[in-house]
């Protein structure tokens, strides 16, 4: 007598249970797929840059590539699109590509380097930015916020596991919801209601900023205010000291390059006079000694461009405006990149002897 209602109840309970299991299964399946096949879902900037880099490489697979790794400083300051053509010693046309990333310090640079390896990108040269603030330590949530499963070994090796994993897992609470627009952009762009990552992250054909973050001009008052804020937050530079994890990450990249015969150029990007004043004499000595040691150990020329630009070339003391980016790019191309690409060994020797510390007359400190 009660069999039919009981069967119906059981069927409804089964439906609800299977729906829940189905949802979990779909979430897990999507997670697993996206971790290895769609890193751009978690890292918009990386997705945009790698897509453009692949386009350039597809145009001419034999063309040698100089990869530039670094933070938003070099991200805004280096505009490869406006450089004159770079020639190698053999007379080949080289491609310089800006593969920087917001807030990228030594560990995130290592992650980017590993990602390039996984993508099959073979750099002929590497330009590695050294950012003094980030060399004192990176926040784990920055890297964990953009990392995917293949990045986990580096993430967990270099950051406290608990903190890194918490951010990593939190980013995966509801993947279908979080990445719905990115998924639609990939598989059904007509249904997407948000711009794609390549539209949101506006970059030029060689990774230079094409209107994404680089301002054309900042009023003096704003510049002064933002610079003062940055300088106030950078008082820890008075006691600059290399962080052990950062040192290990830098050395890992340089070791990799040495093993693969990839000449590397070390670059200290421009800072305004207000920011340069934040360093105490002792911290400057420590920074210079460390950079010089790295340069010698790995035969990597060191370019100290910290004083290359005027204060008006900056928006906040360490990020440039367009004029600053143009000045920096042209100077880097002429005085560092071209000599480096033509003859990396000579450039390294010059650097070791101090002959590549430019402009002449401006001391390191």
């Amino acid at each position, binding site marked *: 007598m009660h069999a039919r209602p009981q069967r119906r*109840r059981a069927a409804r309970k089964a*439906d*609800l249970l*299977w*729906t829940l299991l189905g*949802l979990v*299964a*779909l979430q897990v399946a999507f997670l697993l797929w996206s971790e290895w096949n769609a890193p751009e879902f978690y890292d918009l900037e990386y997705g945009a840059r790698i897509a453009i880099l692949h386009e350039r490489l597809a145009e001419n697979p034999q063309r040698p590539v100089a990869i530039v790794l670094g933070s938003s400083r070099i991200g805004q300051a280096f505009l490869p699109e406006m450089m004159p053509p770079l020639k190698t010693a053999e007379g080949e046309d080289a491609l310089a590509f800006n593969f920087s990333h917001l807030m990228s310090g030594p560990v995130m640079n290592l992650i980017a380097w590993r990602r390039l390896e996984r993508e099959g990108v073979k750099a002929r040269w590497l330009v590695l930015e050294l950012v003094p603030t980030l060399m004192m330590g990176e926040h784990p949530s920055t890297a964990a916020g953009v990392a995917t499963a293949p990045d986990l070994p580096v993430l967990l090796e270099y950051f406290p596991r608990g903190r890194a994993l918490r951010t990593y897992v939190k980013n995966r609470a509801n993947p279908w919801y979080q990445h719905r*627009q990115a998924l639609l952009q990939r598989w059904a762009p007509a249904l997407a209601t948000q711009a794609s990552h390549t539209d949101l992250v506006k970059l030029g054909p060689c990774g230079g900023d094409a209107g994404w973050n680089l301002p054309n001009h900042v009023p003096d008052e704003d510049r002064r205010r933002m610079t003062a804020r940055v300088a106030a937050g950078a008082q820890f530079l008075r006691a600059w000291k290399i962080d052990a994890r950062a040192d290990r990450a830098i050395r890992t990249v340089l070791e990799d390059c040495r093993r693969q015969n990839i000449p590397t150029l070390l670059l200290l990007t421009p800072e305004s006079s207000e920011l340069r004043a934040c360093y105490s004499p002792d911290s400057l000595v420590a920074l210079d000694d460390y950079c010089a040691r790295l340069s010698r150990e790995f035969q990597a020329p060191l370019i100290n461009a910290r004083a290359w630009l005027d204060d008006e070339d900056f928006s906040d003391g360490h990020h440039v405006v367009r004029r600053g980016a143009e000045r920096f790019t042209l100077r880097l191309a002429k005085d560092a990149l071209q000599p480096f690409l033509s003859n990396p060994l000579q450039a390294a020797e010059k650097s070791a002897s101090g002959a590549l510390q430019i402009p002449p007359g401006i001391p390191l400190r």
Partner: protein
Amino acid sequence: MYPRRGDPARGGKDTDVMLFCSLQFLGFFLLVLLAYWSMPWRWARVWLLLIASFYFYATWNLYLAALVLGAATYNYLLALWMGRLTSAWARRAVLTFGLTQNVALLVHFKYVNFFLESLQSLLTSLGFSGNLGTLNIIVPIGISFYTFEAINYLMDVYWKKTPAERSWPNFLLFITFFPHLVAGPIVRAKDFLPQIQRRKRWSWERCHLGLRFILLGLFKKLAIADQMALFVDPVFAAPESFGASVLWLAALAYVLQVYGNFSGYSDIAVGTAHLLGYKLVQNFNMPYLAVNIADFWRRWHMSLSSWLRDYLFVPLGGSRGGRWLTYRNLLITMTVCGLWHGASWMFVLFGLVHGLSLIVHHAFRGWCKERQVVRAALETTPGTVLRWAFTMGFFMLSLVLFRAHSLSQAGTYLGRMFSATEGLAPPRAALVVLLAAGVLAAGHWLGYGNRWLAWYAKLPAPVRGLGYACMTVATILLMPVTTQTFIYFQF
């Protein structure tokens, strides 16, 4: 005089009530659900729902939540008084008084500025230079719905179709029950009040049914309606910039949007009520399968159309007084229907147009009765398809009046639809609109004659479960970055 929307000092917030598709509502509802089924006492559950409903409305505006309670209490007392009277004329007097008060409340909040502005336009056109001004009023969300429920309750008590409810909390719950409070369905007292008294036990079947309604509602609202809005809004904002094909597509998109939005809301309301052990009336019955305009109004916003039939059309005389009286009653009823939607001449025009179409249908039906050949031809498959196409085409064009802000905008829109004009590219790919139309068509086809039930029953539970999971994921995937409010909140 009244709290301005967005004035926190006076209980106002610059937002709508909690949207059914928001995380805020999810959190609120889960708490209510948990507390509700944890309580074994009926009276406690009633009070819990009352508090929850008040909170639901008060998150938007505290003072207007108090207005809802006040208006409901007022009607409760009136009905009790009417129920105690034995004299027919006294009962009629109380009813008239009650109806007048309810209509006055509705007119004051919703229509007084409309009438003042219209009067001002008229006086200006006649040469008067004075300024009547307008009142600083915000329209309480849901006032059209709960006022109509109060009216139908008073009339049912008067006609003795339902006894006057003695329990004040029960009556309050009938009016303020949050699933239907702000956008319907319009509930009848004789359907809802007995449910409060019934003992409720947790039921997995009911839970399953409720969740199914909610899922379907969310899909219609988020994946269909909100996607269509992204096509509709830019085109209706500047119809003079677009060519005929885009205007037709946008009109089609609006047909899909308004159905997805409103029936989606109704489904969520029905599903939410089921989870609390209450059954609300269905508001839509596959309206886009209608083959004539009368059939359409029997399927579209059924709680409103049946309300208008029972409490306006029939008391006016219905179709009992001969042809011309029937036509008059149809015209009045549909004009009120249009006006109910909002204080604008465009809504009045919408109602008028539908009233006229019902008259034409009535007349044509009468004409066909004497012509068997025509009648037979219209009932063949091609004939039915033709009638369906005509009905849908008419509804689509009438929605242009519904959506347009002014007669001139509607005129521009309709004029350009029927001329060989070119214009800007569509704001989104036409494929999106056609896909949505295809999905809704498939849904209607499956629903027709409950076709889907036969297949559904044969599927094993894992397949059904996976199907629901896929539908949930599809809803999440297709929801736009910014979701829209519910269209019928403004009514």
